């Protein structure tokens, strides 16, 4: 039993030693770099679900193998987490003893002068016509800023041990601890953060951060259930974009009002000029203007004379010309009978061009500004399939309904603002105009300030640990022997860089030359 425990302890100790060795840390770092790389080369679910699906469809067994190995979720994969977890332990194991060593050294005296200074990497020797004590005093003055200790030696000589550059280790520890802090705050942030995207039509439409359902898309952290979002509301009054003649966007402005905190109760709205690069920060959340597009306005006049108008954002299909595609749907009015409803639902689906250009009758767009808006639409009538309980993309129609013949294409037409098209049952569909919509993102990350603080500390520590050199110099001053030519006192200087040798030579040469004069200037 005792032997078993001993074996186990030995195993644990050896594992610990192995894990905290520098060589292991180097290999783990290499694995981290290698492990992160697929994330740059393969599509990632976190960034673009659509591209992942496309890749899977195109690559067959190879794709599904990669998928099973979590190559499309690299940064949350088991193996990537394992690498950085091990690295984390290795780092802690390396830092703990170093911290104690650092604390011990922070009060320690510089080490005793080696017997033979000539064996050190840097060495110089000379004689002066001064007393031993005068030289020691002058040298101590010259070594101001160094931590020094003067020791008496056997043969009537004295020596100075001097060391400086202790801040290098300080910087080193600050760097590594800050790195730990950064990773921890990043991880905590991932638990409690959320972001959501929503398209808001820029005609005074309001958006309130009241729950997950307010969003088109919502990405919660692991500990976010979407019930306790920070309450605030945003109203998008108008949106303006300017473009260069080439069609490249030049400026985006969204004129918004917002309310949060006490303003929610009093109903006060505060104005904000929302722009790219200048998010609205309120209630602990940030609201970004990430994109924009057009929302065509359609009015449907039903056979009984009733009218319905709808504004639905149609997302841009082409980022430069803003040719957009989307679907606007209508339910017939006053129908409670599900069967009747499902025979007369209407879907208007197709393309919108802000500045129309035609090749034959095919609509395309030649410029992103709304100079000559037009739509090219197919109008369907029948069962949209949106009551089937299955989710489907709101920007397109349910093709399976069309295939089953339950949703029937009635007409295909190009429309300009004010133009309308009539279906055989008397329903009229008019394209009124196009509004603009803003694509907003709401982000919440409670620890990002901490990440920034740690990042700055990382930088400070890094600069300190790379710029400062830890180095030692020893001066031995002895009375000259009978056979020594020159002055009556021998001065010997030895130097050693404790860390990378690069660059100590020049400083030592300069310092030694001054020390060998035996004077303090």
């Amino acid at each position, binding site marked *: 039993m005792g032997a078993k425990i001993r074996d186990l302890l030995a195993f644990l100790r050896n594992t610990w030693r192995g894990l905290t060795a520098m060589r292991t840390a180097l290999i783990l770092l290499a694995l981290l770099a290698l492990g992160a790389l697929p994330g*740059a080369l393969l599509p990632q679910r976190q960034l673009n679900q659509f591209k992942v699906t496309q890749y899977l469809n195109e690559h067959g067994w190879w794709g599904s193998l990669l998928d099973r190995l979590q190559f499309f979720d690299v940064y949350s994969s088991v193996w990537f987490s394992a690498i950085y977890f091990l690295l984390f332990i290795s780092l802690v194991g390396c830092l703990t003893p170093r911290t104690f060593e650092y604390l011990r050294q922070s009060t320690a005296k510089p080490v005793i002068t080696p017997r033979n200074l000539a064996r050190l990497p840097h060495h110089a020797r000379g004689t002066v016509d001064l007393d031993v004590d005068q030289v020691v005093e002058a040298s101590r003055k010259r070594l101001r800023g160094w931590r020094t200790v003067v020791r008496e030696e056997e043969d009537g000589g004295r020596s100075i041990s001097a060391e400086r550059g202790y801040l290098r280790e300080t910087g080193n520890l600050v760097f590594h601890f800050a790195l730990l802090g950064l990773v921890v705050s990043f991880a905590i942030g991932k638990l409690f953060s959320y972001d959501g995207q929503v398209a808001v039509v820029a005609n005074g439409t309001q958006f309130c951060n009241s729950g997950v359902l307010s969003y088109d898309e919502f990405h919660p952290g692991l500990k976010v259930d979407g019930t306790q979002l920070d309450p605030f509301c945003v109203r998008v009054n108008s949106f303006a974009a300017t473009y260069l003649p080439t069609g490249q966007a*030049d*400026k985006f402005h969204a004129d918004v009002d917002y309310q949060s905190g006490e303003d929610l109760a009093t109903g006060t709205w505060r104005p904000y000029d929302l722009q790219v690069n200048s998010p609205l920060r309120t209630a602990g959340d940030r609201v970004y203007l*990430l994109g924009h597009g057009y929302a065509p306005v359609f009015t449907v006049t039903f056979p009984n004379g009733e009218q319905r108008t709808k504004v639905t954002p149609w997302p841009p299909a082409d980022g430069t010309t803003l040719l957009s595609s989307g679907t606007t749907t209508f339910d017939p009015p006053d129908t409670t009978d599900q069967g009747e409803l499902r025979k007369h639902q209407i879907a208007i689906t197709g393309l919108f061009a802000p500045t129309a250009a035609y090749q034959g009758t095919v609509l395309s767009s030649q410029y992103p500004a709304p100079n000559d808006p037009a739509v090219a639409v197919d109008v369907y009538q029948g069962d949209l399939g949106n009551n089937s309980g299955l989710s489907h993309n709101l920007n397109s129609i349910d093709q399976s309904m069309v295939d089953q013949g339950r949703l029937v294409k009635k007409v295909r037409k190009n429309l300009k603002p004010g133009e309308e098209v009539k279906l055989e049952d008397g329903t009229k569909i008019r394209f009124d105009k196009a509004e603009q919509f803003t694509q907003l993102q709401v982000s919440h990350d409670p620890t*990002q300030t901490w990440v920034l603080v740690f990042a700055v500390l990382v930088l400070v520590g890094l600069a300190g640990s790379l*710029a400062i050199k830890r180095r030692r110099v020893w001066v031995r001053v002895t009375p000259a022997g009978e056979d020594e030519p020159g002055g009556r006192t021998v001065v010997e200087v030895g130097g050693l860089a404790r860390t990378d040798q690069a660059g100590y030579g020049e400083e030592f040469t300069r310092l030694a030359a001054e020390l060998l004069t035996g004077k303090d200037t």
Partner: protein
Amino acid sequence: MPVNETLARYSDWAYASAVVIYVLAMAFYLVEQGMTKPKRQRERELVIAVASGGETVVTEGPRALPPERGISRAERIGRMGMALNVLGVLLHGAAVLLRGLATERVPWGNMYEYDSAICLVAVVTWLVLARKFDLRRLSAFVLLPIVILLFLGGTALYSTAAPVQPALQSYWLVIHVSVIAVSSGMLLVAGVASVLYLLRNAHEQNPGRFARLAARLPAADVLDRLAYRVTVLGFPLFTFGVICGAIWAESAWGRFWGWDPKETCAFVAWVVYAIYLHARATAGWRGNRAAVINVVAWVVMVFNLFFINLVTSGLHSYAGVA
């Protein structure tokens, strides 16, 4: 926003002239290379000279050789190369400056401009180092990748002068991109030094290897120190640039870090440089292994600059390459 077409045209001319001048400078450097004999050979000839009864007193260092005329022809050609190189840098700098004046913004808003700026930093860094450490004879090796990059920039990556898109209209464009460009330029120089170190080191281990090329290089430890010192300056700067990028990303894209391909690659490069610095402090990893790691880091940087911008599509796709 208007673009000053005249200044833009002058900028393009200055750019093209700079590339031509660089090529000329490279030719001069190569001629100097070809005319300078490797040290070993020179020593052999000296021994012969001394043995044949000459009372030549040879002082140390290649500068004093050959003693007959004040400056050798090779030296003269090398200096002409350097003069051309300086002229090239001036033209190159003018091209970058005029781009900025023409568009009334910082001149690194697309791939062509960024490529040009980064090369300018690399050449200036090189000239400073070459003056300080007497490294002129290596210049051709540094100019070669630069000329290739500039040629690609002027042909495949070229885009006409225009204002930048809204996402780039931020003061962070000045800070983040310039810091990244400067640090990348420096790290590129460090990478070249490490490549040369590997060649020279192999040559020193076995004089038969890379004899023609490596014999003319500075000693291995000089190259090693050069690579290390430049990296030690470039790496914190690169770190600062990445942090600036994160701050900018927070206000432009809604998160400070999102594993965008460019971010991921910068992270990978950062980690590899961290390995390099640790390796230099670890017994058994100094020298060759450390240099190999530095070269890997360099490859990641170049990969990040080109492949990521041109091939993958991410948020950093501002290349402006049609």
